């Protein structure tokens, strides 16, 4: 519990840091005043209308990706699985890139991303999901093949795209938090799913042993697998529709937390919520401040942070 409290405080610190950084740097006091004051001034507008929505979106997307990653890893019984492994982001990308080529923009693109993600996950579900535990590899194989198919379509679309839209396509593909829509519903959905999953945290712990073993110990694996797949898909689809595909958060955050918090999902899931959010928030703050006045895609930052961190962890475990 103290570790969760520490993560909570860390999240708050990250949020305040993110609010104070940007092309107009502010002190903590100024951030505080801007959040509370009713008198409209330039700081207040920057904080409330530009930075705060982005901070909230970054945090929610990070939390969703980290939780989805933890779920995928349990479902596929592979600590190296990430939320995109079954092709959800690929489906979204193909839908969004096609939309961009047709000149669609704004909120409609978010809708397209969600549609693509949902269709792709349904496709994998019906082709790859079987009740019997003995077929559990089939889901992974189906997902990976579908993901490869989307990858090919993405390359095709990129090579056919006119030069002027290529840049925004690449930004979307690398993950981008630059537009942050109203996030009230997103938060509600995330919170609901999180609470449902917490209800099954004990079952997830036993499911780490593998499906047959968990079933023999009293877990109703058939139902939990569907719950896991649907929750991970919904969370990933929402994250992708808000921010494109941001690499490494869903892979590295659960992995890192297992080393520090342990594998009990009653602690691991809340920890993913808090630290996944903080991690992406930090990465996003770096992405908007590192190369001022340029903003780089946040996906590039998460990967740059994630790759060395991951290699370090692997070496630590082996030695």
């Amino acid at each position, binding site marked *: 519990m103290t570790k969760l409290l520490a993560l909570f405080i860390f999240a708050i610190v990250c949020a305040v840091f993110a609010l104070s950084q940007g092309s107009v740097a502010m002190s903590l006091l100024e951030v505080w005043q801007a959040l509370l004051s009713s008198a409209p001034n330039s700081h207040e507008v920057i904080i409330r209308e530009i930075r705060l929505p982005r901070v909230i979106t970054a945090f929610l997307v990070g939390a969703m990706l980290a939780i989805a990653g933890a779920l995928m*890893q349990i479902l596929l*019984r*592979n*600590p190296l699985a990430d939320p995109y492994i079954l092709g959800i982001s690929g489906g979204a990308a193909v839908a969004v890139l096609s939309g961009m080529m047709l000149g669609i923009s704004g909120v409609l693109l978010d809708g397209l991303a969600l549609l693509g993600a949902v269709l792709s996950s349904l496709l994998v579900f019906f082709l790859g999901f079987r*009740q*019997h*535990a*003995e077929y559990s590899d089939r889901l992974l194989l189906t997902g990976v093949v579908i993901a490869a198919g989307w990858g090919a379509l993405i390359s095709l679309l990129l090579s056919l795209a006119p030069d002027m839209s290529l840049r925004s396509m690449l930004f979307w593909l690398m993950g981008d938090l630059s537009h942050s829509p109203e996030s009230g519903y997103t938060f509600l959905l995330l919170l609901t799913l999180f609470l449902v999953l*917490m*209800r*099954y*945290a*004990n*079952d997830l*712990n*036993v499911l*780490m*042993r*593998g499906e*047959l*073993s968990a*079933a*023999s*110990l*009293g*877990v*109703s*694996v058939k139902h939990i697998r569907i719950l896991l797949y649907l929750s991970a898909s919904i969370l990933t689809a929402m994250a992708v529709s808000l921010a494109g595909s941001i690499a490494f958060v869903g892979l590295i955050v659960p992995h890192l937390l*297992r*080393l520090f918090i*342990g*594998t*009990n999902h*009653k602690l691991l899931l809340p920890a993913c919520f808090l630290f996944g959010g903080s991690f992406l928030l930090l990465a996003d703050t770096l992405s908007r401040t590192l190369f001022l006045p340029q903003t780089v895609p946040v996906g590039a930052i998460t990967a740059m942070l994630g790759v060395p961190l991951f290699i370090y962890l692997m070496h630590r475990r082996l030695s």
Partner: protein
Amino acid sequence: MNLLETRQLSLSRANKKICHNLDLQIKAGECWAILGQNGVGKSTLLLTLAGLFESYQGDVFLQEHVIQKMSRREIAKIIGVMLQDDVWSFPASVEEFVLHGRHAYRSGLGDFSAQDKAFAKQALCDTDLLELVHRPVNQLSGGESRRLALATLLVQAPKLMLLDEPVNHLDLKYQIGLLNLVCDIVKNQQKSVIMVLHDVNLVQRFCDKIVMLWGDGNIEYGLADELLVEEKLSALYGHKICKLEQGEKSFFYPA
């Protein structure tokens, strides 16, 4: 009352017949062994009896209830399974994993009780794992994983134990230790065990009843004394097997 019963059970996998119209009755206090060549479906039969493999014709009754209509939690309070191979890829500790044996007994969100933890400690002691209590399970050796699987089963305290090649990967000391432990529990606490074993001498030493899978859907079962004879074993394994008498004991060896 039969602890476990099959009625007209017909089972096949990958177009291969495993058994046909099998009527098997398992009672409390019995030690069963399942014998047969590689690939005849011993594990599938065991999984079917545990309610973990569901494409079959006929019925499986657990304490007179149709097993397919029972919840996994209800079944887990009666049947414990030791699978043939456990591959554990997450860095959970031995202590966490052994407590999973009590999963069926706790409420949805509940933690393990002090009594659960006492059971777990006893089981780790019985399986010689106390020193490894904080070791991540993905760093255990094959034999240690086996013993952890057994410890989980002991903590689960089922009436019927289904063990798939329980002595795989184990040193001689632990092979005999495991079988002694399991068979003592069966005799002293009126429980039952069905295990897939490959070593005929271990079968002869520990089991009183036998199921032989012939590979063509035919199944023979009965008392160990009647089925463990040279001709039958030679035919079953496709290799000449001889019996060596030594005082009151006898041993089988491949010619």
